[in-house]
């Protein structure tokens, strides 16, 4: 998947644990963990909004597009 989730980096920068963030934005810690590891099919706008609002960042700080390199 060429979309990289940078949530762990943002959490480390804010010195916040996944558990704290999950509790603050009201989603299951397990779901946040899945999001952190990129093992999800999508992110709802309201989840993204809650995370950005809590971490004081932009959606672009959380998600990054890395094109898959074609091996010759």
């Amino acid at each position, binding site marked *: 998947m060429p979309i990289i989730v940078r949530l762990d980096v943002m959490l480390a920068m804010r010195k916040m644990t996944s558990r704290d963030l999950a509790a603050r934005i009201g*989603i299951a810690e397990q*779901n*946040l963990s899945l*999001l952190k590891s990129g093992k*999800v099919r*999508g992110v*709802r706008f309201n989840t993204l909004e809650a995370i950005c609002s809590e971490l004081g960042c932009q959606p672009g700080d959380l998600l990054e597009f890395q094109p898959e390199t074609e091996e010759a």
Partner: protein
Amino acid sequence: MTIDPNTLTQPARRIQIVMTCGMALFLAITAGLAFATITKPSSVGPILADFGGFSTGPLMAWQTVALIGITAIHLTIWLLLLGTARHVFRHLADGEPEAASHAARNLANWLWAMLAWGLISQILVSLVATWGFPEGQRAISFGFGTPQVSIALSALIAGFMARAFALGAELWRDHSEVV
């Protein structure tokens, strides 16, 4: 948006109980038929023939056996049908739409079987019940009316439900992978 599956699972659990009661009723009827066959075999035949719409006097042994056999197949199909319907609602109550889809497909097949056997058994019952009648009064009955149309419609709806559940299962999987 949070989707609450309880709006589906709770009514499904209630319908599952209704289906279980239906199965219990049909089991009781089957047991009653078995008991009557053992205790009063000569009176079972005319009662079954009367139930099929043919008033007869005493029947020969083979006629009674044939009518009991036809009724037993009817009851078996009803039990399998109710059992499959119970499975559909149990899987829905357990939040397993994919399994419910398979069960609904089986239910549709059993409904078609019920329709086919209903038509065949009507012919057989009329033939067996009127076998001993004088010449000119014997009959072969075949009818396609409201009950048969209802069963055919139910089978079509069950087949459509199977597809809808399969699609629902896919949507549910997709929904659960979005955070």
